[in-house]
């Protein structure tokens, strides 16, 4: 198996992030909400990445924040994927009014800007992770729908799918055994894209004060907490920002590599 260097880096970094997120309580040097130091201390042997706006250890908060960010992003993109792919395949293989109906609904959903919907919904519903994940998942599923429908449609016209129909195979076999295996790599790549989008989206929501509840904090929230120092080059806000970027880049590298192995162009930043 040949893995280009870039993809390898991506895989390793992503792996690191996920591990640190999973084992946060064990590896974080300090508890998430303990104000252990002074305000905005610089990096030191005691606080590797310095302290934040009320003297909490940034590294610890990064690690915990990572677990929140990754958990929310992952579950919401899983949700968006489950929904999007399922309906996408359904539309592509069934065609007819199911296809038309679903496609129009998606058109509708896409016509209403997602950030706005998120703002409205989140400002009236009780703010908690479940709601956050649901909102993001549903909003984002439209893009997945379009991609998986397109991919599945390309595959559905293949002779081997026709052969399966002629054999009298059931819908299930055709979707899961004939189409899905061949649609996998563009979908996986898209999953990467959606994940990144989710990460950026939570960050944005948290930045607008509609995201994760304290003392838990995702990276976007951490940037907000420390942004006042940012303009004066206080590293505190820099760290979470970099964390977001590095995670996004790593996942992106992996996704790109998977994409290259099958040239399909979809996904990207959401509107």
């Amino acid at each position, binding site marked *: 198996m040949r893995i280009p260097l870039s993809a390898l880096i991506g895989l390793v970094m992503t792996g690191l992030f996920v591990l640190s997120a999973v084992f946060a309580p064990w590896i974080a040097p300090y508890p998430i*909400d*303990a*104000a252990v130091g002074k*305000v*905005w201390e610089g990096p030191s042997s005691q606080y590797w990445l310095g302290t934040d*706006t*009320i*003297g909490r250890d940034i590294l610890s908060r990064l690690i915990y924040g990572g677990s929140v960010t990754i958990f929310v992003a992952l579950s919401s993109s899983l949700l968006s994927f489950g929904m999007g792919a399922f309906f996408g395949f359904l539309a592509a293989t069934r065609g007819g009014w199911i296809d038309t109906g679903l496609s129009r609904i998606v058109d509708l959903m896409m016509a209403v800007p997602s950030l706005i919907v998120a703002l409205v919904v989140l*400002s009236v519903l009780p*703010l908690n992770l479940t709601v956050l994940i649901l909102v993001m998942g549903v909003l984002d599923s439209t893009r997945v729908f379009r991609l998986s429908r397109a991919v599945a449609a390309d595959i559905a016209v293949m002779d081997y799918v026709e052969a399966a129909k002629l054999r009298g195979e059931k819908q299930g076999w055709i979707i899961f055994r004939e189409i899905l295996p061949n649609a996998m790599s563009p979908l996986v790549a898209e999953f990467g894209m959606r994940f990144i989008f989710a990460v950026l989206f939570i960050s944005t929501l948290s930045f*607008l*004060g*509609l995201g994760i*509840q*304290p*003392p838990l904090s995702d990276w976007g929230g951490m940037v*907000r*907490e420390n*942004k*006042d*120092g*940012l*303009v*004066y080059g*206080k590293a505190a806000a820099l760290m979470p920002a970099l964390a977001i970027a590095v995670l996004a880049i790593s996942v992106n590298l992996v996704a790109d590599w998977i994409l290259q192995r099958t040239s399909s162009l979809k996904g990207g930043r959401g509107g």
Partner: protein
Amino acid sequence: MSSELNHLLGLASAGKMSRREFVGRAGALGVSTAVAGTMLSTAAFADTPVKGGLLRAGMQGGESTNTLDPALAASDVPFMINSTWGETLVDVELNGTLGLRVAEEVSSNADATQWMFKIRKGVEYHNGATMTAEDVVATLKRHTDDKAQSGAQGIVKGITDMKAEGDMVTLTLAAGNADLPFLMADYHLIIQPGGGVDNPTSGIGSGAYKVVEHEPGVRTAFEKHTNHWDASRGHADQVEILTINDNPARTAAIQAGQIHLMNRIDPKIVDLLKGNTDIAIERAAGPGHYVFIMRCNAAPFDNNDLRMALKMSVNRQEMLEKILGGMGSRGNDFPINAAYPMFDDSISQREYDAATAADFYKKSGHDGSPILLQVAPGAFPGAVEAAQLFQASANAAGIPLQVKLEPDDGYWDNVWNIAPFCASYWGGRPVQDQMYSTAYLSTAEWNDTAFKDAHFDEVMIAARGELDQAKRKGMYSEMATILRDTGGLICPMFNDWVEGRRSEVGGWIPNPAGTLMNGKAMSMCWLNA
């Protein structure tokens, strides 16, 4: 005069020392308050005003939903805008004494139940009309009206009769109130033509500047009101008040010279700004305080033991250092500090005491379900962080405090004064009575702690009429203690005004009564070429 006094004077006029401090320290040198005040003002006025130019202030605390109706003003930006186009009968001078504005003379009867205001001649509105005593009465009437939902309602409630004869306005009170003139300085009570009854949001007043453009939550542009009666005000040709809610942007803006004045510098970045010679950090120890308010009529806060438990579990010192960067003073769970006349500094300072807090909590018999503290970043600078410090110290005392983040937008409409427990901010008032009657009188419109105590109310009313300063001080002390031990107010800290002024801005006089020279900065400052 003594060299020490000179030194103090220097400090004070440079804004390095708060006015209160100065008056206090000067007092110690045997200088009377009034004298000290005048000395200070003359010192600060040393350099002569420069006319012309465009003076810009960038402020936090405005939304695109704001209006120009003085009755509805609540946050900093509307306050500043209204104080720039409008004038009250009187205002509070920097030294806490009464300053005369459209009233040129104030007098009362012996028991302070009747007050006479002589309206200045030839005070012209922006629309060319001349201010009359009738306008004044109409204005005050409007604020008594429920529909107006005026923030000053609590203040004017006590007035039983208002009448205008010639240039004289006579107010009759149910009970005597020695502080009434100060109440008339309330920023809601801006005198409008015809009392602004038919068009409260016209923005037409007698201020040194008239509104030319008003985009709520964005920018209000003024130009000089050429026929303004007071030559000592209105130096710049035009002034603008920009709403810049984002802290870094606002700070960057003043550094870049895009604005000349800014409110609410995050204390944490003051040190970072020190190096910048273009910008003077203006500090003044004011009556403003950051608070967490429990509504005494809402479970579980209807239980005083729980309230005490929470009060005991705040680490005030830590908050003062981490939230205010030490630029302020510790609060004592009543809304009064040394910035007020007749403040009783003998009331012992409440300290963080996890053990006692735990006992109170046990005593309260609370079911241990999470106690929700609602907070938005905009409640006060560092509110979210403060709340998290509170949570940490409370949890340490075994109190299940939990912070719930709310969005800035709409916080003041949807959370404050509605939610049972939330973070808030008080700008303070010139005199104790006004502070109490605005927010702690059972019937006050803004009684945001829903604190209802008949005895407390009685003492307040009594104190108003009490002309014997010593007795009065005693009464205030009692009220303070009642509030401190039974009230719904958790007041961890009083914040100094920490505001930014570009060095080219002249005429700055620190005034702890309110933000940006108690709203007068636009009218009294000028741009040195």
